[in-house]
C-alpha cells in the first residue's frame, strides 16, 4: 500500500459521527424500506374497515381539518389502534433485542423468559385483588378511555414484570455472573409458574372480570383508545431516550463482561439499567394490550437476517417489530375477525420458532 493510499485509508470517515454507525448501504436501504413499509401498511390500515377509504382519502382526512366524518373515522376510530400497533411492536422488538443480546441467546426474549407473563400477573393482581374495576372498562370495551385504571394497571404490570425479572435474574446468577442459557431455562420455568398463577387469579375472580381478563390475556389491540394510548406513549417517550443512552454499553457487553469492563463500562450497573428499561418496555405494552407474544422473540432475528450487521440492531429490531405487529393486527382484523392479535402472533411465532429450531438443528448436524 502506498503512503498516500495509507493516509487516505487512515482518515476517511467510514462511520457516521453519531453512534459510530458504519456508513454502509445495506442497513440504510433496508432501514428506509422498513420505514416505508410501516407507513404504507399504516395508511392501508387506516383506510380499511366498514367505512373504506382510499390511501389518498386517508391522507386528506388526516391533514384536512374540514374533512368531517372521514376525519373522525381516521383520527378517532382507527388511528389509536394503528399507532398502538406501530409503537408497541417497536417497543417489543427493541426489548427483545436488548434481552437476546444480554443473554446471547435467540430464545432469551422477554416473552419466553417470563417477563411479559409476570407483567400480566402484576396487572391481573391489581384488577382482581386490588379491585380497580374501572380499568376493565378498557378491557371489556364498554368505554373508550379509562385513564385512572390504566395508570394502576400499568403500575401493576411494571411491578410484576420487574419483580419477575429480579427473581429470574437472581436465580440464574451463579458466582456473580449470569449465564445466558441459565437465564433462559430459569425464565421458562418462571413462565410456567406464572401461567398457573394467572389461571388461578382468573378462576377465583368474578365471572365478568375473569371473562374480560381472559380476552385481555390473549393480547388485543381492539380496545385501544386515545386514553390508554396516551399513557403508553408517554412512558415510551421516557424509555426510548434511556435506551439510546444505554445502547453503546450494550454493544460493548456483546464482547463479554471482561472486555466491556476493560473498555470502561460499569458492567453490573449497565446490565441492571438495561434490564429495567427492557422490562419497562414490555410491561407498558402488556398493561395496555395484554401479553403479545413472539414479536420480541422474532423481530431481532428477522432484523439480523435483513440487515446483516454485527450483533442485534436496536433500531432494526424496533422497525421489524412495528411492521410485524401492524401486519399481525391487520390479519386479526381483516382475515380472522374476532381472533385477537395476540393469538395471531402466537401462531405465527410458533411457526417461526419451529423454523428457527429446525435450521439450528440442521446447521449443527
Amino acid at each position, binding site marked *: 500500500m502506498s503512503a498516500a493510499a*495509507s493516509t487516505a*485509508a*487512515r*482518515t*476517511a*470517515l*467510514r*462511520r*457516521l*459521527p*453519531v*453512534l*459510530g*454507525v*458504519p456508513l454502509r448501504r445495506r442497513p440504510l436501504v433496508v432501514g428506509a424500506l422498513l420505514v416505508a413499509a410501516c407507513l404504507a401498511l399504516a395508511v392501508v390500515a387506516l383506510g380499511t374497515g366498514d367505512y373504506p377509504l382510499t390511501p389518498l382519502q386517508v391522507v386528506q382526512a388526516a391533514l384536512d381539518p374540514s374533512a368531517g366524518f372521514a376525519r373522525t373515522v381516521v383520527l378517532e376510530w382507527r388511528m389509536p389502534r394503528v399507532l398502538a400497533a406501530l409503537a408497541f411492536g417497536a417497543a417489543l422488538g427493541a426489548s427483545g433485542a436488548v434481552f437476546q443480546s444480554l443473554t*446471547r441467546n435467540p430464545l432469551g426474549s422477554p416473552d419466553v423468559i417470563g417477563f411479559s407473563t409476570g407483567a400480566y400477573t402484576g396487572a391481573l393482581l391489581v384488577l382482581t385483588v386490588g379491585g380497580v374495576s374501572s380499568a376493565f372498562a378498557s378491557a371489556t370495551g364498554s368505554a373508550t378511555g379509562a385513564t385512572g385504571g390504566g395508570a394502576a394497571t400499568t403500575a401493576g404490570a411494571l411491578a410484576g414484570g420487574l419483580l419477575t425479572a429480579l427473581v429470574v435474574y437472581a436465580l440464574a446468577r451463579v*458466582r*456473580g455472573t449470569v449465564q445466558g442459557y441459565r437465564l433462559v431455562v430459569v425464565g421458562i420455568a418462571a413462565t410456567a409458574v406464572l401461567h398457573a398463577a394467572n389461571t388461578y387469579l382468573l378462576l377465583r375472580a368474578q365471572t365478568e372480570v375473569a371473562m374480560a381478563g381472559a380476552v385481555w390475556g390473549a393480547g388485543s389491540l381492539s380496545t385501544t383508545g386515545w386514553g390508554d394510548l396516551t399513557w403508553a406513549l408517554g412512558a415510551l417517550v421516557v424509555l426510548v431516550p434511556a435506551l439510546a*443512552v444505554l445502547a*453503546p454499553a450494550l*454493544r*460493548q457487553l*456483546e*464482547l*463479554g463482561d*471482561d*472486555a466491556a*469492563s*476493560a*473498555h*470502561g*463500562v*460499569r458492567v453490573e450497573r449497565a446490565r441492571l439499567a438495561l434490564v429495567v428499561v427492557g422490562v419497562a418496555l414490555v410491561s407498558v405494552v402488556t398493561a395496555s394490550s395484554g401479553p403479545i407474544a413472539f414479536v420480541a422473540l422474532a423481530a431481532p432475528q428477522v432484523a*439480523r437476517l435483513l440487515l*446483516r*450487521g*454485527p*450483533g442485534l440492531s436496536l433500531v432494526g429490531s424496533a422497525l421489524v417489530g412495528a411492521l410485524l405487529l401492524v401486519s399481525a393486527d391487520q390479519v386479526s382484523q381483516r382475515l380472522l375477525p374476532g381472533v385477537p392479535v395476540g393469538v395471531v402472533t402466537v401462531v405465527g411465532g410458533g411457526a417461526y420458532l419451529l423454523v428457527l429450531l429446525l435450521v439450528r438443528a440442521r446447521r449443527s448436524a
Partner: protein
Amino acid sequence: MSGVPGHGVAARLEARGVRLAYEGRVVASDLSLAVPDGSFTVVVGPNACGKSTLLRAFSRLLRPQAGAVVLDGAAIASYRPKEAARRVGLLPQSATAPEGITVADLVARGRYPHQGLVRQWSAADEVATTDAMLATGVEELRDRLVDDLSGGQRQRVWVAVALAQQTPLLLLDEPTTFLDVSHQVELLDLFADLHEAGTTVVAVLHDLNHAARYATHLVVMKDGAVVTAGAPADVLTAELVEAVYGLACVVVPDPVTGTPMVVPRGREARRPR
C-alpha cells in the same frame, strides 16, 4: 513515584498490599507488585498461584478486599471507568465477537473509552482503528468477518481492539494459550514490537522459556505471593524452578537469544535408583 519500599523504579501501575479473593476463597492476602515503567513485565508461576487474579485486579475486573491498586498515584477504584480505560488496556482471556461483525467494526469498539454522548465517532477514532489494524497486520482483513478467521488471526484482531484503546499500559492475560507454537512466537514478537514502541506491557504467561526470552522484568509468583522479581538472567535458576514448581531441571543459555532456558529433567531424574 513509587511508595513501596524495595522498588526504586518509577511505576505508574502497582499493587499495594492487596488482598484478593473470589467469594471468600482468598487467593492472595498481602500482595505488592510494581510494574516498572517501560518494562515488558511477565508474571509466571504454577497454576492457582494468583497471577491471573493479580492481572484481574490490575484491570479493575476484581476489587481488592484490602490494599489498593494504584494507577498514577491514585487508587484505580477512584477513577471514572472510562478514564482508567484510557490508561490501562486489557487483552482478556475470553472475549466474544458478535455474530456477523467485521474486523474493522470489532476493532472500532476498542474506541469506546474515548467516546461519550457528546463526543461520538471522529477522525481520531478512525486513525486509531486503522493504526491498530496496521500494527497487528490485520488491515488487509478489515472487511472480513471475524467468524471466518483462523485462531491466530482472531487473536491478532483482539490485540488490535486493545491497541485501538491507545493506552500507555497494556495487560495480557495468557495471550498465547490456545495458539500453536508458530502463532505464539509471532504474537510475542508483536508484543515485543509494541514494547519497543513505548508501551508498558504486563503479560501472564505459562511458558517459562517464552517468559525468559521476552520479559525485561520477570515476576515469579507462588501461593499468592511474589517469590522474586528482576531481569530473567538474574532470576531464573534451577533452584528457583525446583522451589516454585517442584520440577527438577537444568537451566542453560538459550541457543538463539542467550536468555535462560529451562530444560526439565522429568521422570528419569526423579525415579529412585
